[in-house]
């Protein structure tokens, strides 16, 4: 998937205010092609605001966000966003939910079928494809949202504390699924979490944010090979390192 050194996402002097409230204060960083970046930061520091700005749901106050060196354009750039709350369309079945983005992009029917089958199978929801979202459990809905996001084979995948409300066992399982999907699709992932262990487990690099007005406090690279062992000494050391940084909030 392209050149590893090429920047996929470039954030330049990003500033976001809500009225007089300064949330993001002149933030700059880059994300490489096919990188898995985790962002951790205190509650209310503007993590969701950052993803909403990147995905154009919010207008930004100053600065710019570039994808492949160009301003973000949802028609051109293939971005998928998994929200903090599951956002499946309740009036569509699980299968139709996964198909939604592909139909909008007017993909050929045969390809839609093939992709949807593939991703439903991957998240283990093939058997539940004709159910409506209200009939499924929280973890299944989250997996459906993941399948829907991955089915469009996004260049950039944004995830906002997607596993925040799940129990530990499911969380581990979905983290592994995510890593597998990320490798197979070769997408660039920006993953927000409160959970330091999760960040160390998943990411290739971790950005630590400060309290509002938010700046980047530290940037930690994480080169351990997958699958990672949460009990390994280097894992524990990295986790402690990030935890120490966070204690200063």
């Amino acid at each position, binding site marked *: 998937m392209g050149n590893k050194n090429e920047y996929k996402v470039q954030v330049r002097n990003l500033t976001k205010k809500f009225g007089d409230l300064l949330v993001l204060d002149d933030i700059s960083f880059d994300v490489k092609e096919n990188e898995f970046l985790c962002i951790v930061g205190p509650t209310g520091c503007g993590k969701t605001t950052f993803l909403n700005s990147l995905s*154009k749901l919010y207008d930004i106050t100053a600065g710019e966000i570039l994808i492949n060196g160009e301003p973000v354009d*949802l*028609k051109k750039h293939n971005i998928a966003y998994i*929200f903090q709350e599951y956002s499946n*369309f*309740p*009036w569509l079945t699980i299968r139709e939910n996964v198909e939604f983005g592909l139909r*909008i992009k007017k993909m050929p029917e045969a390809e839609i079928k093939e992709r949807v089958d593939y991703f439903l199978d991957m998240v283990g929801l093939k058997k539940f494809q004709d159910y409506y*979202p*209200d009939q499924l459990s929280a973890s299944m809905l989250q997996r459906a949202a993941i399948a829907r996001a991955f089915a469009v084979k996004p260049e950039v995948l944004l995830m906002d504390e997607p596993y925040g409300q799940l129990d530990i066992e499911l969380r581990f399982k979905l983290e592994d699924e995510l890593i597998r999907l990320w490798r197979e699709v070769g997408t660039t992932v920006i993953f927000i979490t409160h959970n330091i262990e999760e960040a160390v487990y998943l990411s290739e690099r971790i950005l630590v944010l400060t309290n509002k007005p938010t700046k980047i406090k530290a940037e930690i690279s994480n080169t351990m090979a997958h699958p990672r062992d949460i009990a390994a000494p280097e894992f524990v050391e990295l986790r402690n390192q990030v935890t120490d940084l966070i204690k200063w909030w």
Partner: protein
Amino acid sequence: MKKRKKINGVRVGIGAAAICSFLCLWAFATREGTTLGILMPGPVEVFTHLVETTYTKVGPLTIWGHMFNSLRRVLVGFTIASCCGILLGLAMGWNRTLEAIFRPIFELLRPIPPLAWISLAIVWFGLGEGGKYFIIFVSGFSNVTINVYTGAKSVDPELIGAAKMLGCSERRIFPSIVIRSSVPYIFTGLQIAISSSWAAVVAAEMVRSTNGIGWMITAGQSVGNMEQIMVGIIVIGVIGFLLSTFMRGVESKLCAWSRVQDS
């Protein structure tokens, strides 16, 4: 599945038993020699009269003709009310400007009961069918509007965001997300509206009519024919029940997704 069927069976049984007891109570209260019995016919007399009216005319028509005319009025008024209500509700729910314009007027008109419109209906639409359609329209319109408005207002912004992310253009958001997610609210509105429209048919047919179930009741009253009045009342009740059952059936077909939880 089996358990649910059993519970349904029990429920139907209890309902039937309750109706039977009510009929017995009615028969007992109006038996030979009671004061109520002089004023009011018993269930057997009313039922006999009901059967008679299916082949002998009451006024100009048999009961089928009266039913047909009442249903026609209700369906015309209800259809217009539904279309207008859905359009206005969606418009107010989705567009801030339209909301600012129509909401205050709507909130002022909403509490006025359909009956209060009768004189105006006559002045505006005359004594013919127009006035009757109008009364029925008024009794359904605000129910539809308020529900659809609530529905369009409460569309989850995250779903709109998700759709945009998946490449949905601004123009397509309205039909694919806003309308779709308002469908259960639309049906709630339609269901309340069909019942209140049907209930308003009596009032509508009080405006100088010559047929209809409402007319049967008013006409029965003016000649003191209690059996005719009772037949009219029962037919109103039964048809009202059938109409709302029908609406609920359509709803559960079309909004299977929103009903799955409470089925």
